[in-house]
C-alpha cells in the first residue's frame, strides 16, 4: 500500500510559481493546444476564408459591373468592404467554435483540474483570435493577387494593422461570449444569419450607404461594421462617406465601438463562464 492510506490527505499542492505566472503559463499551454487543431482540422479555417473569397468573386465579376461608385474603381471600393465583412463574420466563426468547444469533454477535465479557470477562457479567445488573423491574412493576400491596390503609406499601414487587431480582439470576445450563451453551434449559426449577416451587408460593404432607402440607411449610418469598413476604406483609399458622425470619423468611431464591445463582453463572458462551471 502506498501513501494513499495515510490518515491525512496529501497536502494541497501550492505550486512554487506565483498565481499570475501560472495564469500566463496555463493560458499559453491551452492556446497552443487549440492552435494545434488548425493543421489537423483545416476545415475550421474554411469559415473565415472560403466565404469572403466567394463574396469577392461574386461581387468583383458578377454584380460589380452594375455598381458604379464615383471617384474610385469598384475593385478598390470592394476590398475594404470584404475585410470589414470578414471581421464581422469572425464573430460567427468564434461563436460556432466556442459553442462547439465548450461541449467537448476535455473542457470538463480542465475545469476539474487545479488550474485557473480564467486561463481556460483566455486561451479560447487567444486561439480564436489567431484563427481570425490567419483567415484575414489569407483574404488580404487573395485580394492583392487579384489586383487590389491599397494606397498605403507606412503610418497608415501601421494604424490599419493596429485597428484591425483591436477589431478582431473585440469581435472575438463578442463571438466567444455569444458562443457560450447560445449553447449549440447550430443556434450560433442562426444568430449569425439573423443579426450579423444583415449588419455586415448594410455597412456600405458592397454599395454606398448614401444610395440606400431611408430605413436601411439609418441603420447603416450607426452600424458598427460601417465604422470598420469606413476605417479600412479611409486608410487605403482616402475615401470617406458622409451621413453620420461615425461615417465622417470612422477610425475614432471604430476604436470606440471596439472598446465598448470589450468593456461589455469581457466581464459578461467571464461571469457566464464561471456560472457555467459552478453549475
Amino acid at each position, binding site marked *: 500500500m502506498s501513501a494513499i*492510506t495515510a490518515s491525512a490527505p496529501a497536502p*494541497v499542492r501550492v505550486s512554487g510559481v506565483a498565481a499570475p505566472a501560472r495564469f500566463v503559463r496555463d493560458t499559453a499551454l491551452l492556446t497552443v493546444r487549440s492552435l494545434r487543431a488548425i493543421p489537423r482540422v483545416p476545415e475550421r479555417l474554411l469559415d473565415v476564408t472560403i466565404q469572403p473569397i466567394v463574396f469577392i468573386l461574386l461581387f468583383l465579376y458578377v454584380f460589380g459591373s452594375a455598381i458604379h461608385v464615383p471617384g474610385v474603381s469598384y475593385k478598390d471600393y470592394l476590398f475594404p468592404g470584404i475585410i470589414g465583412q470578414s471581421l464581422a463574420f469572425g464573430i460567427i466563426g468564434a461563436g460556432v467554435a466556442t459553442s462547439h468547444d465548450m461541449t467537448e469533454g476535455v473542457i470538463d477535465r480542465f475545469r476539474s483540474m487545479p488550474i485557473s479557470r480564467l486561463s481556460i477562457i483566455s486561451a479560447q479567445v487567444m486561439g480564436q483570435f489567431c484563427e481570425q488573423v490567419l483567415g484575414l491574412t489569407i483574404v488580404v493576400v487573395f485580394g492583392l493577387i487579384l489586383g487590389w491596390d491599397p494606397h498605403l503609406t507606412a503610418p497608415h499601414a501601421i494604424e490599419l494593422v493596429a485597428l484591425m487587431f483591436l477589431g478582431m480582439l473585440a469581435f472575438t470576445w463578442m463571438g466567444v461570449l455569444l458562443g457560450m450563451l447560445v449553447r449549440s453551434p447550430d443556434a450560433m449559426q442562426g444568430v449569425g444569419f439573423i443579426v450579423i449577416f444583415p449588419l455586415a451587408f448594410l455597412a456600405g460593404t458592397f454599395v454606398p450607404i448614401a444610395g440606400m432607402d431611408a430605413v436601411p440607411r439609418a441603420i447603416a449610418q450607426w452600424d458598427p461594421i460601417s465604422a470598420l469598413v469606413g476605417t479600412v476604406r479611409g486608410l487605403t483609399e482616402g475615401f470617406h462617406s458622409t451621413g453620420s458622425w461615425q461615417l465622417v470619423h470612422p477610425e475614432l468611431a471604430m476604436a470606440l465601438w471596439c472598446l465598448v464591445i470589450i468593456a461589455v463582453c469581457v466581464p459578461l463572458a467571464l461571469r457566464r463562464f464561471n456560472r457555467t462551471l459552478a453549475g
Partner: protein
Amino acid sequence: MSQITAIETQGLTKRFGEFTAVADLDLRVDTGTVVSLLGPNGAGKTTTVRMLATLLRPDAGSARVAGYDVVREAAQVRALIALTGQFAALDKNLTASENLVLMARLRGRGRRDAAIVADRLIERFAIDEFRNRLVKKLSGGERRRVDLAAGLIDTPHVLVLDEPTTGLDPRSRQVVWSTIRSLVDDGVTLLLTTQYLEEADALADRVVLIDRGREVAAGTPAQLKTQVGAQRVDVIAADATEFARVSELLDGRFEVSRSAEQRTVSVAAPDEAEDLAAVAAVVARAGVQVDEIALRRPTLDDAFLALTGHVAHEDPRTESRFDESQPTEVAA
C-alpha cells in the same frame, strides 16, 4: 486517530428545474476503499460525481472530499480528486501522448518532467502502440485507457470513474477492468459508478444501489448477491405460443419470472449447472421450440427486483451531461 474520510456527503441534493436528479444522498467512501455507485441511466450517478468534482453546485446538503467542502474549498478539492467520465475528457485533435504531456504540464510539471510522467503512464496503461495516433482515431477502449491515464498524472487522493466501461466491447472491458484492478492493488481510493452489477461485484468493496437520485440499498457485493440470488437460467421461446407452453411447463417446478415481450422465462438457479441441465431436460422432453437456453449472472434489473421489489426506472432523460449550461447529449 480518526482516518479522514475520502468522500462524505450529507443530504446531497441537485435539481434541474422540476427534475430532482439527486435527492438527499448520504454517501461515504473511506480512504483506501472502493465504493461503487450502481444504478440505471438517469439514477443520478453522473450528477453526483460531477458535484464531487466541483463541476456542479449542489442545491442542498454538503459534500466533502478529504475533508474539504466542494463548494467553499473547491480549489483544494480539485487538487485532490481526479474524475474520468463516460465521455472521454481528452483533446480529440491531439495524440494520446500529446494529451498526457499537456495534462502533466497543466498540473505544473516542466517540459522534461511532463514527458517522463507521460512515458511512465504510456507504459503502465499499454498505450505505446497507439501513442502517436490522434485521440479521435482511437477505439473506445483505447480512448478510455488514455483517459484513465490522464487522470493519474499526480496520484489523486480520490479517483472517481464514471461508468468506465459503458459502451465498450467485452474485450476492452476486460482490459479496463484489469487496469482498474491494478490501481486498486496500489491502494487508490476509488468511487466507481456503473450500470453493471457484475462490474460492481468485480471491483468494489462496497456497493450503493441508487434509483431516482436516492439510495435504495447498500452493502458489500457478497451481501447484495445473497439478497439478489444466484445465477439464473433464461429460456427464450421461439414464438408467443411456445412461450406460453414453456411458461406453463416450468412454473411450479422451478421458481420463475417471465417476460412475455421478450418471450423469456427466467429460472432461479442456485445450483447453477445442475439447474441448467434440469431445465434443459424438461424443455427437451416436452419438445418445446426454444431459441436459447442459457445460464446467466443476475443483472441490475434482477438486483432491483430483489432489493426494491420493482424494476429499475430508466429515465429517458439520460443524466449523462445533464446540466443547465450544456445541451443534453445522449450517451453514444
